């Protein structure tokens, strides 16, 4: 007897859920469509996030051709794994994690200078007081400076400043200590400032 009354309430609640979830920015309908393999929904989800994710790939791996491959493979992963997405984070944050993990695995396979993470100096550097001259502060200069960093520095720097992860999260993503993340970030920042100051 109880279950049928429950069903009625659950059904009514579904209507509440879809109308009120607009506040939680969940793209609920699109995600449901994607889970069912609806091409239209999948295209929508891709186009919502493709540009942002592509720029993340570019920052992480530099080469546009590699970045394109990573973008492509990451979204195939996204759609194949979507059934395991349970709204514990926003869909955007979830997609971002998939993309970033793929970029990192790609860099690790190339084994380029990830050795930086063997960090013997885990005390944080004294913050350099110097600031970049305002005249040098533009998107182009910053991008160039970031691109010229070795992989290890570049990854930590972009994850912190561009992708908004904190050091605890970066430590988890890269499997390093939080202290290492902080010191890598410090050093990366120092190097960038040096580059942009032209010294």
């Amino acid at each position, binding site marked *: 007897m*109880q279950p049928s009354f429950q069903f009625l309430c659950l059904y009514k609640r579904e209507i509440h859920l879809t109308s009120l979830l607009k506040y*939680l920015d969940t793209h609920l309908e699109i995600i449901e469509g994607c889970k069912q393999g609806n091409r239209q929904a999948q295209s929508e989800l891709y186009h919502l996030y493709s540009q942002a994710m592509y720029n993340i790939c570019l*920052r992480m791996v530099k080469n546009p051709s590699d970045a*394109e491959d990573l973008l492509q493979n990451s979204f195939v992963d996204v759609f194949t794994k979507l059934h395991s997405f349970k709204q514990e984070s926003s869909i955007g944050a979830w997609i971002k994690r998939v993309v970033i993990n793929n970029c990192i695995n790609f860099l690790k396979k190339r084994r380029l200078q990830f050795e930086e993470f063997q960090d013997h100096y885990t005390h944080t550097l004294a913050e350099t007081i110097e600031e*970049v001259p305002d005249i040098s502060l533009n998107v182009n200069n910053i991008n160039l400076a970031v691109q010229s960093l070795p992989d290890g520095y570049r990854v930590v720097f972009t994850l912190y400043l561009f992708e908004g992860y904190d050091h605890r999260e970066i430590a988890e993503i890269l499997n390093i200590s939080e202290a290492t993340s902080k010191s890598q970030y410090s050093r990366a920042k120092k190097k960038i400032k040096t580059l942009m100051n032209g010294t």
Partner: protein
Amino acid sequence: MKKDNLEQFVQTNRAQFDQVVPDAAIWSKIEQQLPKKEIKTFTIRRVLSMAASVLLLVGIGIAIGFQIAPKTEVALATIAPEYAEVEQYYINKVNYKLAQVANYHGDPSLEKDLDELDDWLLQLQKDLQEVPAGKKQEIINAIINNYKTKLRILETLIEHSRELNEQSEENTSI
């Protein structure tokens, strides 16, 4: 830690760092690797049988509804004491934000949504009592989502009222 001018610049101009557009051809490459068949859950037959079940249950539900005495609001805490702290946190936060918008009667649709949420919360709390132990976790998650949504709406209201205050300040200053 205080942000230096580099960090501040990046954060202020964050959108400018995402300007590169990926090649349009990439989507077709992705598409080709996805399964072709779509899982159709809504055939006419299924819709009709669902409609029939719903009508039947609505009838039964109404009949039963008349027999169930209304229950008073039951705190989440009495059913699942480990959530007492979580519930208290949300209640405090919601009340704080309610106080902040107490003087602001702006968007009637937002307020209507808040009322709907309150109804929904009462229903969830009722369900929590009735539901078997295995399902309780689902209900608890739904209650927490309810609080979160409420907070979101209140934050939107606060933001609106703040914007209006700023505007009116601008208008009154010289």
